[in-house]
């Protein structure tokens, strides 16, 4: 074997604290190393060309690059090696930047460590064998979980790309949080005007199969061949017959049931259609407040329904779908203000969240667009907005900034001044975060044109006094505390991970951060991909973001899926396990421990043997560490290869 070692300076990132020339000199002395040089930027084009040239001229059969993390540029160099005609797996990397040069200044120790890491890489490379991926066909269908604006955009783009889409939405209608908005910043254009048509497109698009009131039950298989189980909840209304006429809603006697769509600011009937532009516009019975389920009598809706769509005996059903890719667009939840004692913990009726206020502003809301105090229905004159509620707050475990509260509060201030011209609007803020296009100008309009009074300081306490609410805040610019007697207090509650997001992450086998948001493959370079091939992210499920970013990520995720499906056959990752039929004694331990069921028992000349299904194996290596006699070996991470690295460190 003739190995080429390339030690990268990475500008000064590595050269700053590692003597790369010394590492190269030492590497020349390693077994089977034919060439060892150091280069300024190995990952740059000239850098890569130098490698290709060296392979061709010197007839090298393996390359070691000592530079940054393989998680960063392993594929880059593998492609370069492939360009030169070598198998892309005859390549190893030594991470001498993130694990060496960046974590310490001791040049002598760093150089010695880098040399040893190169030695380990060379020893592993000497045991590498060319690997060839084989092809497997792809189910060119995509599952989009979550029907918010991001999910809708992703579904539409994929459908437009000619691929079949299964859009799954937990609630009875798509639209997510945006459907609950009256207007959107910074253009103050009506939310349902821009979202409604997209929702209709989803309903009418031939390629999109919309499944509302449905949740993901389980995911099996792998990229290109996911088997997905979906749990369709019982709506107690047969949607094939329901025309959405709304008769049942008018006649339903139980008027006090919880109105989840209107954020519990109003009440609604047990059987209801969340909002006029709902897609699908079908009724759903809430068993928690329907008298038929609670007391066993009633049945008014069954009587009045013109198409006889009511079916109390409806049961939950499980559907299965075959898809090739999954886009998670499950959005976020509003921070639960009952956790903040000093603002009344949700006990005071007129201390509401911004989304509840948005429902009051909305024409399709419980008050038909007239701002009324939930307590007595009176029109509030002094309205106080409190920013950073449940955001930028370590004591509540939410140290991050939710990003879009400053903007929607400015919008709501403007709308309030529109709805009630003689109203007094105060906004307690710490810093105005308005980074987008026309964003800052929009907040300035709220202050300059609409006279919203912005007070720089946080609110310590809100308590009722008579019919008013004393908001005790501070004005740090003035350098004192301030009190306002408010009629209505709107808390700009921040965004937190959707309830159940961690459970969904575990089903999709993607990881989530301490707050429950899904973790992307790379924060800057791969924001919509995850570490699990074939699973993509879009919208606030990956972190709080506003509508433009969510839509952009919806399209980005769709683009990724379309790129995935552009190839007829997908190449399987060749780093999978293989069973040596000579050594296998058929003890079945590997079959028992394989998380993916990727190993099956075969009969070989009368003796039981194990055999790995190439396409199902994900390359975790559990079977390799379980097989006592080393019959199962994970390609590229075989026992010998890892032992070579251990021996490089410990034997000599």
């Amino acid at each position, binding site marked *: 074997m003739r190995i080429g070692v390339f030690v990268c300076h990475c500008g000064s990132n590595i050269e700053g604290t590692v003597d790369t020339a010394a590492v190269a000199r030492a590497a020349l002395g390693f077994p089977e190393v034919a060439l060892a040089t150091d280069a300024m930027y190995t990952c740059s084009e000239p850098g890569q060309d130098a490698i290709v040239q060296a392979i061709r001229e010197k007839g090298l059969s393996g390359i070691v690059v000592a530079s940054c993390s393989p998680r960063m540029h392993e594929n880059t160099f593998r492609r370069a090696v492939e360009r030169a005609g070598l198998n892309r797996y005859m390549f190893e990397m030594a991470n001498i930047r993130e694990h060496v040069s960046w974590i310490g200044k001791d040049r002598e120790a760093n150089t010695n460590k880098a040399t040893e890491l190169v030695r380990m890489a060379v020893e592993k490379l000497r045991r590498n064998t060319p690997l060839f991926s084989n092809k497997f066909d792809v189910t060119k269908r995509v599952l989009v979980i979550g029907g918010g604006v991001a999910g809708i955009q992703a579904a539409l783009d994929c459908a437009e790309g000619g691929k079949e889409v299964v859009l799954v939405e937990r609630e009875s209608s798509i639209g997510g949080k945006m459907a609950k908005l009256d207007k959107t910043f910074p253009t103050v254009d009506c939310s349902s005007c821009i979202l409604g048509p997209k929702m209709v497109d989803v309903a009418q698009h031939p390629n999109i199969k919309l499944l509302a009131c449905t949740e993901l039950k389980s995911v099996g298989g792998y990229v290109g061949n996911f088997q997905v189980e979906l749990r369709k909840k019982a709506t107690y209304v047969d949607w094939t017959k329901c025309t959405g006429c709304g008769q049942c809603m008018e006649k339903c006697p139980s008027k006090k049931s919880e109105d989840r769509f209107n954020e519990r600011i109003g009440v609604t009937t047990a059987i209801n259609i969340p909002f006029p532009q709902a897609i699908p516009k079908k009724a759903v019975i809430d068993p928690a407040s329907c008298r038929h389920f609670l007391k066993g009598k009633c049945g008014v809706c069954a009587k009045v329904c013109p198409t006889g769509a009511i079916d109390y005996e409806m049961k939950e059903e499980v559907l299965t779908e075959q898809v090739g890719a999954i886009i998670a667009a499950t959005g976020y939840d509003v921070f639960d203000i009952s956790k903040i004692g000093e603002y009344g913990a949700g006990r005071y009726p007129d201390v509401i969240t911004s989304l509840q206020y948005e429902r009051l502003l909305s024409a399709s809301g419980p008050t038909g667009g007239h701002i009324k105090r939930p307590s007595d229905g009176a029109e509030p004159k002094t309205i106080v907005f409190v920013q950073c509620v449940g955001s930028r707050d370590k*004591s509540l475990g939410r140290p991050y900034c939710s990003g879009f509260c400053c903007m929607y509060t400015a919008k709501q201030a403007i709308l309030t001044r529109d709805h009630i011209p003689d109203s007094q609007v105060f906004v307690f803020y*710490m810093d105005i975060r308005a980074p987008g296009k026309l964003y800052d100008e929009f907040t300035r309009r709220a202050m300059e044109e609409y006279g919203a009074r912005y007070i720089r*300081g*946080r609110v310590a*306490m809100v308590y009722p006094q008579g019919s008013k609410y004393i908001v*005790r805040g*501070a004005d740090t610019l003035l350098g004192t*505390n301030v009190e306002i007697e408010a009629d209505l207090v709107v808390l700009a509650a921040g965004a937190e991970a959707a309830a159940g997001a961690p459970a969904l992450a575990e089903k999709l086998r993607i990881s989530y951060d301490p707050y429950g948001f899904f973790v992307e493959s790379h924060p800057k370079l791969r924001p919509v991909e995850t570490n699990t091939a074939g699973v993509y992210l879009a919208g606030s499920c990956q972190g709080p973001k506003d509508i433009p970013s969510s839509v952009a990520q919806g399209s980005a995720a769709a683009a990724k899926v379309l790129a995935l499906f552009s190839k007829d056959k997908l190449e399987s990752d060749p780093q999978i396990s293989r069973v040596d039929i000579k050594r296998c004694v058929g003890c079945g331990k590997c079959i028992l421990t394989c998380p993916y069921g990727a190993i099956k028992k075969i009969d070989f000349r009368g003796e039981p043997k194990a055999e790995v299904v190439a396409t199902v194996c994900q390359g975790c290596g559990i079977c390799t560490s379980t097989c006592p006699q080393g019959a199962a070996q994970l390609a590229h991470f075989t026992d010998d290869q890892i032992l070579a690295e251990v021996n490089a460190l410990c034997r000599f």
Partner: protein
Amino acid sequence: MTSINYSNRFDANFVRMVEEASEQRLSQCYQCGKCTAGCPCTFAYDYPVNQIMRLVQSGQKDTVLNCKAIWLCATCESCTARCPNNIDVARVIDVLRHMARREDRVAISEVKKFWDSFLKSVQTNGRLFETGVLAGYIAKTGRIFTDLDLGPRIAPKGKLSFRPHKVKGQAEIARIFERFNKGVIS
């Protein structure tokens, strides 16, 4: 407000001492003002709480230790309870009082005098002798009219005793103060 030249009037030592004594990292405070908002006595202060924190952050030792606010603080823990960054603000203010007293810069003498007579009574009797404290305070400040109006309201209740309630272990309490004053602990 005097303008500040950070290079020569920034007392880094002071900042470090406050952080060590209060075991709080002052850099965590992003000046949101919630402590000032919640503090019941802001109206009586020369500098509101968040400005005191800002002054400490920027090492303005003299301004802080000479200010009146730290003596008017009622130690009601509202600021600590509600700080979004979990800073124990009340303890920082406590530490500032310790430092101010040690350098004998007490902006409001009445409070110090009241507390001194309180501690004197504890040192001598082991338990608080309420009337004694009031008498001591009046003697020290010369404000003979303090709570004169309350005299007639409380006298008939028979709650005020005119003799201190000595504690058998009084000597031990005295020894505590003595050891403390002798600087047994640095």
